[in-house]
């Protein structure tokens, strides 16, 4: 847990010096995200508690009822969900996972030759073909 001034000066270009400084000790750029996560959780988590302490608390049965247009809740929470939702999520997963593989390629784009571009184009077209199938089958129609 020590840091060298030279490294700081070199790294100061990369980021706010007062943040990079400690990160040198932990050899990571991610520590700051972890700290922000904790700080944000603390600052934001306190808000509902404060609200609970400040605001008047006079709950009654009618207030604690589920808000469904003033009617009494009938039956279970589940209305009939349609498989449509699942199909949207399905196509999303397809492009999400495919897209993740495109990012390293995008970084390496300058050092890739035309063959690499062709491979990635084919990959992207495969994804597009799946989308085309979904559209043709009417999987993405909202009725």
């Amino acid at each position, binding site marked *: 847990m020590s840091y060298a001034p030279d490294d700081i000066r070199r790294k100061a270009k990369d980021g706010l010096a007062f943040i990079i400084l400690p990160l040198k000790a*932990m050899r990571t750029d991610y520590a700051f995200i972890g700290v922000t996560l904790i700080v944000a959780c603390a600052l934001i988590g306190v808000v509902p508690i404060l609200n609970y302490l400040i605001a008047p608390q006079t709950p009654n049965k009618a207030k604690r009822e589920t808000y469904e247009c003033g009617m009494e809740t009938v039956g279970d929470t589940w209305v009939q969900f349609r*498989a449509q939702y*699942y199909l949207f999520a*399905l196509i999303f*997963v*397809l492009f999400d*996972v495919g897209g993740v*593989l495109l990012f*390293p390629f995008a970084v390496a784009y300058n050092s890739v030759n035309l063959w690499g571009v062709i491979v990635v184009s084919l990959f992207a077209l495969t994804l597009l073909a799946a989308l085309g199938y979904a559209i043709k089958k009417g999987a993405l129609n909202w009725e």
Partner: protein
Amino acid sequence: MLNGIPLYWYLIVAAAMFCIGLYGALARTNAIAVLMGVELMLNAVNINLLAFWRYLTPESPAGLAFAAFVFIVAAAEAAVGLALIISVYRNMNSIDPEKLDLMKL
């Protein structure tokens, strides 16, 4: 980053996660929960792949490539598996693997 963490820590955590996933895949009464167990197992595998990559061959992209393909396989597996479960539920009104014994003689 690796300050003081030996490789076997990762291997043991991954092994524990794998075994928990295995238990889930074998002992749950709901097919979706079974798939959750399988996802845990795939995650454990991925931890191992990346841990070996980091400790043994950090210069080679092989470990990263394998981890990426595990991601793809996991996504495809979850998508198809859950679609099958939804379809089975629609036809049988149950997704308990023990009760789905149409194929049994």
